[in-house]
C-alpha cells in the first residue's frame, strides 16, 4: 500500500485502484477526496491506497436503468462495502452477495468506464 501527500490515481480516473484519505491530525478517514479533513478541517489529508478487502453493508440489484449505456448491463448489483481500512464505499458486486459477506475488489468495465467490483 502506498501513501502520498499528492493525489493518487484511482478508479474514478480510470486506474485500477481504490484510494482514500487519512487525516494526519485527527485520524479521520474519508473516501470522497477533498483538500481538507471533513472532521477537523485540517489541510492536506494523506492519500492512501486501499487493500480492496471489506464487508458487504448493503446491496441493491438494479433491474431498471435510465440510459442506453447502463441498460445493457442490467441487472447489476450495487453494493455498499465497509472496507477493512474503515471507510464505506459504493461499488458493484456479484448478484448473490449477502450483507456481512467478506469480499475482495477487482475492477470491471461498466458503461465505458472501470468500476470496483466485489466478490467473495
Amino acid at each position, binding site marked *: 500500500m502506498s501513501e502520498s501527500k499528492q493525489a493518487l490515481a484511482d478508479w*474514478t480516473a480510470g486506474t485500477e485502484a481504490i484510494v482514500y484519505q487519512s487525516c494526519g491530525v485527527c485520524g479521520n478517514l474519508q*473516501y*470522497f*477526496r477533498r483538500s481538507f479533513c471533513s472532521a477537523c478541517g485540517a489541510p492536506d489529508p494523506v492519500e492512501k491506497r486501499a487493500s480492496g478487502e471489506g464487508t458487504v*453493508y*448493503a*446491496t*441493491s*440489484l*438494479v*433491474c*431498471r*436503468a*435510465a*440510459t442506453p449505456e*447502463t441498460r445493457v*448491463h442490467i*441487472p*447489476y448489483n*450495487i*453494493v*455498499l462495502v465497509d472496507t477493512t481500512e474503515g471507510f*464505506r*464505499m*459504493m*461499488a*458493484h458486486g456479484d448478484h448473490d452477495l449477502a*450483507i*456481512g459477506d467478506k469480499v475482495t475488489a477487482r475492477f470491471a468495465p*461498466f*458503461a465505458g*468506464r472501470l*468500476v470496483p467490483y466485489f466478490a467473495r
Partner: protein
Amino acid sequence: MSFVTGVGLTSYGKHEGSSSLDLMSKAAELAIADAGLKRADIDGVLCGYSTVSPHIMLATVFAEHFGIRPSYAHAVQVGGATGLAMTMLAHHLVEANVVRHVLVVAGENRLTGQSRDASILALAQVGHPHYEVPLGPTIPAYYGLVASRYMHEYGVTQEDLAEFAVLMRSHALAHPGAQFHDPITVADVMASKPVALPLKLLDCCPVSDGGAAFVISRERTGETGVRVRGCAQAHTHQHVTAAPALSELGAEIAIARAKQAAGVAISDVRYAAVYDSFSITLAMLLEDLGLAGRGEAASRVRSGYFSRDGAMPLNTHGGLLSYGHCGVGGAMAHLVETHLQMTGRAANRQVRDASVALLHGDGGVLSSHVSMFLERVR
C-alpha cells in the same frame, strides 16, 4: 404565530399540455381563494424547482407570470423535503414580521414534460458525481440499499414493505384526484416488476404531473385556524455512501427538535402525514418518528392503526405512492390533505379527530429532514 390559511391542489397524473408554470398557477389560485385572499394580498413567494424547466430565478419567473409583485421571493431546494422546508421558512418569515401572507407553491409537468428515463436520470444526480453516479445507481437503488440494510437489522420482510403500498393505494381509492384508482394487494406488490431489489415497481412512487400550494399567514383568515405549532430540520449527509448508521438518521434528530420547539409529544398527535417516496421510506420514517416501534410499523398497518378509521390515520389522500409524485409538489399534497382533515373538509375521507398533526418530509437519500406539528385552533 403563523397559520396555514389556504391550500390548493390539482389532481396528480397526466396534465397533457400543462407547463410547470401552468400547474403552479392553478394550485396558487386555489390556495389564495381558499384563504379568502386576493392575489395582491400575497407579499411573499416561496417556490420549489422544476426538473423539466430549470431556472435560476423560478420565484420571480412565477411571480411575473402570475401577476404579483412580492416584497420577498425566492426558490428553495431540499429535494422531497422542500415543501415542508418552505413552510418552515414561511412560518418564521411571518413570525418575524417580514411579510403577512406567504404563498408557498410548486408544480411540475414531470410526467408528460419529459421522458421517464429523463426523470430517473435527473433524480439519480443526487448521488456523488465521481464516486456514485458512474456506477449507474438510480433513486430506487439508493433506497434499495437502505432497504436491504433496514430489513437485515430489524427483520423486516418484503411482504412487510408491501403493506405500505397497499395502504396508500386503499387511501387513494377515496380521492378523485389520485393518480391510481385500482386496488392492489400484497401479492400484486410482490409480483410487480423488479426495479432495484428489494424494491419492486409497486414499492415505488410514480412520476406525475401536478401542482400544490398553500398560504402561510400571520393571522388566521377563516373560522378554524390551522396553526404551525413548531418545526425543525436535520441534515446529516447528502450521499448514501456518507450516511450515518440507521440509528443515527436525521428523522430522529428533526423530530426531537420539533417536539421541543412545539411542546408536543407523539401521544398528542391524532393525524400523520409522512413522506413515502418508497415503501421503505414510509416504514423507516414511521419508526424513526416514534409512530411505531422498531420493525413494528408493518404490523400496525395490518391491524388498521394507520387506516382512515384507525388510531393514527396516515396520508389519507394516498401519499406519494398512490396520489402521485410531481417533485416538490408531491409531498405538499400531504399538507393539503392534512389541512382538509383539520378543517373538517375531507369529505368521504374525513377522520374523526385531526386536531394535532405531525408532518415529516425527507429529501435526498434520507439526507434532509423537516418535522412539523400543526394544531387546530377555533
